């Protein structure tokens, strides 16, 4: 896998999504490990703005040349914005998964603190994805 490091200020799910929290809002995307496993992404189905999601809900679908995969929300809240660039350039997920390839932004719900407490921090995710890749 390419040597992209996992940002320290993100939290991570076991299903390989990341979330970056800024106060009451957060941004969500797929990790570098996820994009590497998926291969070239060709289509992304995004949640509707205004939709309320719970932690663990399927919020969208990512289609790559290999497979079609569900994506799960790391935390509960209301979708406020989606990354429109992805409809024309889904390859941003491959090129810059932790930056330009972000998926959507949300206003965190009341349960946010508990949701976030269930996620992995950077060192834990680093170990987790390394084990997932080992056979």
């Amino acid at each position: 896998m390419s040597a992209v490091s996992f940002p320290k200020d993100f939290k991570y799910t076991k299903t390989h999504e990341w979330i970056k929290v800024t106060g009451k809002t957060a941004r969500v995307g797929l990790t570098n490990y996820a994009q590497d496993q998926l291969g070239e992404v060709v289509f992304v189905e995004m949640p509707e703005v205004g939709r309320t999601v719970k932690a663990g809900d399927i919020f969208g679908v990512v289609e790559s040349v290999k497979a079609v995969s569900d994506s799960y929300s790391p935390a509960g809240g209301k979708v406020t914005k989606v990354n429109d660039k992805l409809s024309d350039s889904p390859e941003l997920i491959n090129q810059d998964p932790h930056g330009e390839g972000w998926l959507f932004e949300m206003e965190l719900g009341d349960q946010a603190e508990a949701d976030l407490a269930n996620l992995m921090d950077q060192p834990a995710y680093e170990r987790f994805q390394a084990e997932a890749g080992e056979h």
Partner: protein
Amino acid sequence: MSGTGYVYKREPVIFELSSPGRKGYSLPALDVPEPDLGQVLPKDQLRAEPAPLPEVSEGDVVRHFTRLSQRNHGVDIGFYPLGSCTMKYNPKVNEVGAGLDGFANVHPYTPEELTQGALELLYDMQNYLAEIGGMDAVTLQPAAGAHGEFTGISIIRAYLASQGQGHRNKVIIPDSAHGTNPATAIIAGCETVEVKSDARGGVDLESLKAVVDGNTLCLMLTNPNTLGLFDENVHKVADIVHQAGGLLYYDGANLNAIMGYARPGDAGFDVAHFNLHKTFATPHGGGGPGSGPVGVKKDLAAFLPVPVVGKQGDRYYLDYDLPRSIGRVKSFFGNFGVIVKAYAYIRSMGPDGLKQVSEDAVLNANFLMTRLKKDYYLMYDRICKHEFVASGLWQKDRSGVKTLDIAKRLLDYGVHAPTVYFPLIVPEALMVEPTETESRETLEMFADIMAKIAGEAKDSPEKVLAAPQSTFVKRLDEARAVRQPELAYRGDLGPGK
């Protein structure tokens, strides 16, 4: 260059061969009045200008399509070890049967008394499949495997509704399943629940117990599953689902591995479909339509789609009198020509021959798996059935050569690539199904090629990463093909634009 004629580097599309006024036919002068199309057709059906069809001679057409066919790879050209979607050899004698005048040229509205032979064949086929599957009644209507699944799930819903269980709508599907299973469940208006595989690749019993409940409609199971592994717990699986009041659906995609040795009906399955185009050797993919008959246990027989073929005395008839039937699922009587070919296959193989098909399919797969496992990671290292799933994980970790690259490199050696990246539970999956008809020499040739590619991945990975080099077209941009598909010829762009 061989004597087969000039081979274009790029075969033009047939529109580019067009020359104004050139014709491939010659008809006598019209001797009836020509109607004004504006008078006989509705206005919105009329074109402003004639359709821009290619104007070519008969020779142009024959050469063009023959050249295209020479660029194709099929099971009649070379080894085609495609797992998941069995590509086995299709004996040509089956075509002779299907081409008989009474089968090929019979009109579907021909009265029953003039089609007794065709009806007899359908009636016998229902019984053969019931016997092979351990089922009590069979419909031959569904046009393909997934259509069979939809028909089967619809039958289960109708049956359970008749038992006051119409609220059941959860379909349990293992994580190793073919994608058609969840698609079927959703199209049938159900919800899907995934159940994990255990360490041996079978259904994890504890996970299954945790998801069955009063809303369980059925479990859909492929056995052997897409890993090519037989689930020895199948009776326990059946008990767990039945005790919760759900039914068992057998996806017959891999029946060719156990045919004659194990019957889904005996293992507790209530409904099963058969892929005639896989198990019973009729051509599919680009070679012809499928056929997905469905067998059911007797309690569900009343719900089969109409018509079924019945027999009264020595007369065969189409039975539409099934008041609880789910209705029609296909026009007329299924893909009749395919059914004739499968009938010919079953009759020419006979019971012992069908058993040997299973034996040889399993033997060939195990032979190859054993030869390959030195060079390729094997996630489930146990005796397989008709197929096995290896992995390119070692190559990916050690030299960055992925399974996709290995698949492309196989093309350089004149072999069709196996199914890749499926099933999803095996990383970098390479799913190999040699089928029963391949000789030991062919299998050894393939094993040698795979060993060679493993060596290349280690010593000269750039060779594998740049494959294929010997094919008419090199590495295709798959992502762009999905993102910007151009599927129709646009004359206004001109050739090659």
